């Protein structure tokens, strides 16, 4: 049996990702669209596919519908067949353990039936929240070579960011000897990527020890480090936790750089072209005479009559004549009527913008959003799913327009910096 076949993958896709604000109002963070055609979870799933593992359980909890629709049968990632499969594992009521997932380890503990039904050599636990490319098979090889009980995928991050991560201090052979979860004062710059390999039997034993230990990073890993073999697998390359609006925007903009570090097609990342966005039915993007597009990614089904600079457009976006779009992320089937200016915005699916509107007015990007000052503070304005912005409306910086806002929501023609509708 190939070693890949001997690893069971559990993908944690239940996170709320609340700092993504209205982008996660209707969907879980892993289901947030990314890079025009993809959703965030496509990166993890494609890494698993490209590494040759055949069984994946996807643990969901928060707003799983769009995620479930997206996964479908798993065919998009080649997980259909007799000896392959993707299973959705939602929380369920049971004989004893009837509760929502209380943490990462607790989520696995609730799905021990699934784990026991797929006996394997290792269990690989991944998060569905990250943008990266990784050969997971090499991680498994490393784990076996080190005869580890647990191996954690880790990478070097700037010291200033270490407080967002689990941090590990290793010895010369790569063994983790100390662990700090989200340390205020950094002593290392080696951060956990939320990727864990466990020996199968070892994990079952560990989970059975103390049911109060509900989280890997906070409880189980520190305990294991003290007494067992826990190794750090060093990862080098592009990896982003796009958990904030700013990080999400930056990662999209990274796609547009010269010789970009991130390149979904070259990485072998697969979208699900048959899920609700129906890429399969889109004709090529149409560029009218007089359109001007530079440094952008444009998906099939778009119709561009105006100007688009430094932006990422999902399928089916219509940009009318005389529009100017800059530094923005525009999702599926948004319709932008003529003469509109959009500067530094993220627009969710099927937003309609009336003639001559301005989104991102003014040069002052420093007034943070009044309701969510720690979400929006660099000038990005968010427009929610299926919102309708009336013609001539002028919206400032760091604004939030909630999903399904209609004409009636706009009492004024002018929405000032930092306002929320």
């Amino acid at each position: 049996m190939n070693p890949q076949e001997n690893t069971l993958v559990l993908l944690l896709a239940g996170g709320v990702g609340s700092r993504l604000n209205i982008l996660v109002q209707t969907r879980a963070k892993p289901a947030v669209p990314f890079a025009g055609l993809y959703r965030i979870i496509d990166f993890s799933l494609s890494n698993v596919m490209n590494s040759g593992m055949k069984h994946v359980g996807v643990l969901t909890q928060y707003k799983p519908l769009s995620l479930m629709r997206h996964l479908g049968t798993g065919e998009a990632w080649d997980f259909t067949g007799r000896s392959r499969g993707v299973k959705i594992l939602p929380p369920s009521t049971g004989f004893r353990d009837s509760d929502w997932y209380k943490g990462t380890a607790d989520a696995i503990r609730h799905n021990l039936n699934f784990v026991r039904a797929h006996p394997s050599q290792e269990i690989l636990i991944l998060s569905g929240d990250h943008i990266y490319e990784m050969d997971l098979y090499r991680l498994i090889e490393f784990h076996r070579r080190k005869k580890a009980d647990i191996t954690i995928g880790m990478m070097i991050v700037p010291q200033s960011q270490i407080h967002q991560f689990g941090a590990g201090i290793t010895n010369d052979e790569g063994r983790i000897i100390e662990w700090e979860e989200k340390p205020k004062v950094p002593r290392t710059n080696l951060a956990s990527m939320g990727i864990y390999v466990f020996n199968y039997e070892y994990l079952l034993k560990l989970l059975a020890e103390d049911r109060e230990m509900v989280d890997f990073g906070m409880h189980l890993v520190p305990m294991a480090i003290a007494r067992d073999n826990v190794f750090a697998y060093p990862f080098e390359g592009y990896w982003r936790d796009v958990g904030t609006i700013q990080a999400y925007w930056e990662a999209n903009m990274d796609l547009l750089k010269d010789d970009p570090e991130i390149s979904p097609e070259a990485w072998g990342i697969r979208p699900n072209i048959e899920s609700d966005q129906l890429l399969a039915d889109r004709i090529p993007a149409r560029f009218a005479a007089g359109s001007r597009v530079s440094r952008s990614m444009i998906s099939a089904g778009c119709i561009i009559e105006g100007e688009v600079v430094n932006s990422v457009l999902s399928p089916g976006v219509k940009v009318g004549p005389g529009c100017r779009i800059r530094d923005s992320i525009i999702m599926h089937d948004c319709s932008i009527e003529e003469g509109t200016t959009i500067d530094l915005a993220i627009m969710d699916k099927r937003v309609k913008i009336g003639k001559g509107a301005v989104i991102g007015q003014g040069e002052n990007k420093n007034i943070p959003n009044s309701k969510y000052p720690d979400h929006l503070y660099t000038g990005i304005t968010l427009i929610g799913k299926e919102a309708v912005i009336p013609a001539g409306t002028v919206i400032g910086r760091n604004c939030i327009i909630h999903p399904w806002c209609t004409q009636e929501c706009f009492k004024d023609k002018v929405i000032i910096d930092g306002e929320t509708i």
Partner: protein
Amino acid sequence: MKLKPRTLAMILAGGRVDDLTVLTFHRPKSAVPFGGFARVIDFPLSNLMNSGLDRVAILSQYRSYSLINHIGIGAAWEMIGRYRGISILPPYIGYGHSQWYRGSSDAVYQNLDFIQYINPEQLLILSGDHIYRMDYREIINYHRQKDADLTMACIKVPMPEAHRFGLADIDDEDGDLGGRVVRYREKPENPEYNWASLTVFCFKPEVLYKMLEANIKEDASYEFGRDIIPRMMNENLRVYGYKFRGYWGYTRTIEEYWQTNMDLLGPDPKIKFSEWNIRTNMDHRGIGDCQPLKIGDNAGISDSLIYNGCIIEGEVERSILFPGTHIEKGARVKDSVLFFNNVVGKDAKLDKIISDVNTTFGRGVRIGTEGKPGPKTASVIGWNNFIKADTIIGSGCIVYPSLPSEKIPKQIESGEVIR
């Protein structure tokens, strides 16, 4: 048996069409790419899907690999299920008569057992070679309403062009909708009427079976247009014409193929492409795995259709680009159709060309007769070629597929053919 299909559709997809030269060296006409992501056969297949007809057979013979690959299991057109499906029917060896399909009607005749097994109420026979949108339910309804033995879809063509087609003289029985075919001539030298057959035939099966049997016994050629329809006219059977008034792309020459592509462009394109609901098989050539198209800083794109997976750093004007094509900085592509995975090198200038898949144009290559007056014809470049830097090629040239690059001269005059 409510689910049992009442209509069986058969697509004639075996032909090569000599005038398309290098584009059909390695594939049948029906598998020729069209529209920036699709193939010609996607048009009849999508029409069938949109008409709710999902029991389909494809008669294939010439170089069928590309076609079989493209059809896959038929899932792209929702044609999988208990009574839904696409069957590919290639020629076969049997007990007794075993031969290639000797014509369009022979291809159907050789598969009579298949048709009789399905036992449809009507048999819809289509060409896989044309670009059009039609709701076949309308012609089927008309056919049933008239209790016709054959109903054929026809379109009015200009008289000077009419000699290229099978022509029907349709009476005014049902006005704009259609009427009885009172005369029929296949490609007459001096046409007297100009309703051209679209090769969309709706037959009453038992009548067709009789015609095919008689045709095989008595005639030396086996074509619907030349043999079966005239035979039905002679026997005074109920042959009706359904008058089609939509767009019809008859792409049998390079110039027609090029023009039909250009009909996708412009401010008010003749083909309302996004409304046609055309599906293709996204697994074929992996186009479903392409990322969105990337556009560089100094790109200029005007009046063009470009699919995912392309990288545009130069200028593109009035052109259609299939997935995986890369236009490098300073290059300019005008009035052209570039199939999958072409690379146009820095400062190359391409004017009115059709380039088949996997062809690379080196730095500074020039194709076309820019600046010279008079009508230009398209140059056609076969697949898997490498055109060396600074090569100059005129208009109306043909470069054969997969040539060693040293066999392609640095200068090719207009109209030359490089083998």
